[in-house]
């Protein structure tokens, strides 16, 4: 029997605001416990929530970026349950009338494009944190995070493999950073996914019972968790067991998902409209204003790179995987560099190096103007690509150096002078008659070897393109 996998994702995106969603307390991350706990965060009697404008603007921005409807009226509700790090005994969230409805995100998985529908996105407040096992095995409550604005983004169950789920999550992760609503820091919990997984017999109309994998904060874990969960569910059904709707946690050490201890009774959250908050009204003017500040989205940039700059899709998608990279690339091209060579250099060299050192493009030690100069010297054939790599490595080690000085001191200048190259070619042809024979009998490998020989005696300074051209000319004539 074959199975269809059905996946929907709910993502909690922490919005990058200076203050909490309902109070003027700072949202700064990493402070000692409870330093950001204000009267409202602590739910002191008589304190009231007042909505942060910036959080609303960012929610609208997201809605526009996924081509969704922005609700003219939306309502905040209370979700009631007791938990020590939920100070009011209820979470303020949007229930029946969320601010964003019916958008989509297009993913590309192994060359296939697919639209993932976004059902809704709603504003809500984050809870605090519980620290277990302190002071004689008790729990400590830290309310710094309580009240941090979240946008919960909910998809339809449109994904049918772990790979698609990851593609969606990565795309969303890029988008929320691109439009500047989230810092995307998954370690700090700024981007957390709950993944709903179910399986059904292939082609069946009826959805299976789903289990929700909570709080995945890495793409790698997400993929492992989904794959484990899918196999587990299929095994259960094939063994004749029913799947029970439940919430599960992924254990990265064992690589397994496991149902959370089920409460004696199902949660009854008793949602009702929060009487302390009035309906939120969003005018067309506000929407237009935000739309005009949205700027180019990754999708448009990708098109620009592949169509206008003729980059291949792989390079283009790496360049738009992050807004900073894209901007960096654009500024390089704007300074007159060749689009393709620049793309190769960013993807092939710069990124490899940054990844090796686990750095982001912001942390690149090489000054932008030196990087530009380096690519210029390659473009104008002053140095070869290989020499360029050598200089790049040296710049990385000591960013105070200058590209031109390095070319001079290391004698890396490429020889493009015919009178210098031709004698070398003659010499190699003369000394390698067997290879010449092999080339003539149709072996391309032999030709490359001959080019290599010429490069070798030029100590790498000869322009390889030129060498290859001249050599071919000579060999085919003779």
């Amino acid at each position, binding site marked *: 029997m074959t199975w269809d996998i059905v996946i929907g994702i709910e993502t909690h995106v922490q919005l990058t605001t200076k203050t909490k969603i309902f109070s003027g307390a700072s949202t700064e991350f990493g402070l000692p416990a409870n330093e950001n706990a204000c009267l409202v965060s602590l*739910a002191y*009697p008589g304190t009231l929530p*007042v909505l942060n404008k910036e959080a609303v603007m960012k929610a609208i921005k997201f809605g526009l970026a996924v081509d969704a409807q922005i609700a003219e009226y939306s309502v905040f509700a209370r979700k009631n349950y007791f938990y020590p790090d939920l100070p009011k005994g209820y979470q303020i969230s949007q229930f029946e009338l969320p601010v964003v409805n019916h958008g989509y995100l297009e993913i590309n998985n192994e060359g296939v494009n697919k639209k993932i529908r976004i059902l809704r996105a709603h504003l809500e407040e984050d809870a605090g944190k519980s620290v277990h096992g302190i002071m004689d095995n008790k729990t400590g409550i830290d309310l710094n995070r309580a009240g941090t604005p979240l946008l919960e983004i909910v998809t339809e169950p449109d994904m049918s493999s772990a790979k698609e789920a990851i593609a969606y999550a990565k795309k969303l992760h890029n988008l929320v950073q691109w439009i500047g609503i989230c810092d995307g820091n998954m370690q700090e919990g700024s981007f957390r996914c709950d993944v709903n997984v179910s399986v059904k017999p292939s082609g069946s109309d009826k959805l299976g019972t789903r289990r929700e994998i909570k709080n995945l904060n890495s793409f790698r874990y997400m993929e492992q968790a989904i794959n484990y969960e899918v196999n587990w569910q299929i095994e259960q059904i094939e063994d004749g067991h029913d799947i029970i709707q439940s919430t599960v946690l992924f254990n990265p050490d064992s690589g397994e998902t496991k149902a959370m201890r089920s409460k004696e009774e199902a949660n009854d959250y008793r949602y*009702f409209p929060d009487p*302390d908050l009035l309906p939120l009204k969003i005018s067309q003017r506000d929407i237009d204003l935000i739309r005009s500040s949205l700027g180019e989205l990754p999708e448009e940039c990708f098109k620009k790179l592949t169509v206008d700059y003729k980059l291949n899709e792989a390079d283009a998608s790496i360049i738009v995987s992050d807004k900073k990279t894209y901007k960096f690339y654009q500024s390089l091209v704007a300074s007159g560099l060749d689009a393709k060579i620049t793309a190769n250099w960013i993807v092939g060299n710069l990124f490899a190096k940054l990844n090796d050192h686990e750095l982001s493009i912001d942390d690149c030690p090489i000054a932008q103007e030196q990087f530009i100069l380096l690519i210029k010297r390659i473009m104008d054939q002053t140095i070869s690509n290989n020499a360029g790599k050598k200089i790049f490595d040296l710049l990385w080690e000591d960013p105070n150096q200058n590209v031109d000085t390095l070319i001079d001191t290391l004698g890396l200048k490429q020889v493009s002078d015919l009178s210098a190259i031709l004698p070398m070619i003659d010499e190699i042809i003369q000394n390698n008659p067997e290879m010449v024979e092999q080339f003539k009998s149709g072996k391309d490998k032999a030709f490359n070897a001959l080019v290599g020989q010429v490069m070798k005696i030029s100590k790498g300074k000869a322009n390889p393109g030129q060498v290859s051209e001249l050599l071919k000319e000579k060999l085919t004539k003779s």
Partner: protein
Amino acid sequence: MKDLSLNELHQGLKNKDFSSVELTQYYLNQIKDLNTDINAFITVDEEKSIQQAQQADQLISQNHISDLTGIPIAQKDIFCASSWKTTCGSKMLDNFYAPYDSKVVDLFNKSGAINLGKTNMDEFAMGSSNETSYYGAVKNPWNLDFVPGGSSGGSAAAVASGMSPAATATDTGGSIRQPASLCNLTGLKPTYGLVSRFGMIAFASSLDQAGPIAKTAEDCALMLNVMADFDERDSTSVKRDKENYTQSLNASIQGKIIGIPKEFFNDELNDDVKIILEKVMQAYQSLGVNFKEISLPNSQLSIPVYYVIAPAEASSNLSRYDGVKFGYRASNYKDLEEMYLKTREEGFGDEVKRRILVGTYVLSAGYYDAYYLKAQKIRRLIADDFTKAFTECDLILAPSSPSTAFKIGDKTEDPVAMYMQDMYTISTNLAGLPAISAPAGFINNMPIGFQLIGNYFEEAKILNFTHLYQSISDWHKYSPGEVL
């Protein structure tokens, strides 16, 4: 000093007939003499009050005096006041010293008024007799065997007995007007949103509204001048120009129309109350007012609707009392769940627990539509009735309470009978409208008031009508000693 109005106290302070310290000390002495019997105050802090009075005297000596500068005002213990114990009448907050001022307290402080102490109240403002307080029942100064009404019973008893010139109060279903009625006082519940709720401990957020309890409409106007202010910390606070509520107190009401809702003046209305209200009508007639019968067809459903909405909101509002961040925590528990269960079992009184359970029930899965949503829809119908009625009249006359005060203990075993106390006041809370209760006379030596309901933000009109009534009647001048 006991019978002086706020304006007379102001003149006395201004003319240096007495100082704020002397005045405050006078009232503190009254409290010492009377509070043991009446139990109107939960917290009195002589040192703090006198200190504030000294500061007020300094201001007055520099001629920085506004209407309430130097005048002691009792604060209902629902308003957080920085470094004062704020209990809301509950064991849950018995040890709670608020680290902040409510907006109302802040406004009084800024006006130079003196915080005379925190008045007793029904626990979390849930009650109509002031018997649910953790700090014991408040006695009605007109007869100590009787209740003063609730939930602002402490504020009403404090003013009626001469322990305070005026007091703050709150009204969720009648908690200003019913005690005012039972204690021969004037009490105004403003339009929802006129007075900030910040720092006022929530009972039912969409209904709660602060207002004054005082001897006269004029005093209420002076109090409201201080209390009514936009507050950006309360999302439901309404931004509008400040009004001077004393300005139009004497405006003519000749030719105005008072609506008489037929649903209130029916066979169910107590005969004695009916006679009293008819006398009020005669007085207004003499002021040139006309009457018109109006209809509020859905008002009879106010009580069931209120007892869905208020407990629902309360059940959620009171979830924050969990023994984690502040307030009471049970001392014996084996785990977190038991800590919650016992903290809330021991920290809340019976009526509060009942309402939390009712509120939890009407919001729970499977019942939400039948109860909560249904109640919200009827709430709309009730509000629409008023909107329609106000196209035909300026104000609406209604009873304030179904009868005079009842005996302490009479209704404690029957919550539903207790809830009926608010049958004439609740509909205005549901609609969000302003309304006043003012003294209308006595039945068997116990006072009773009449109620005037106005359209949104028509406090000035309500105060004008009431002030003119008080200029041709004497009921508000009676104080307990003279009748007893």
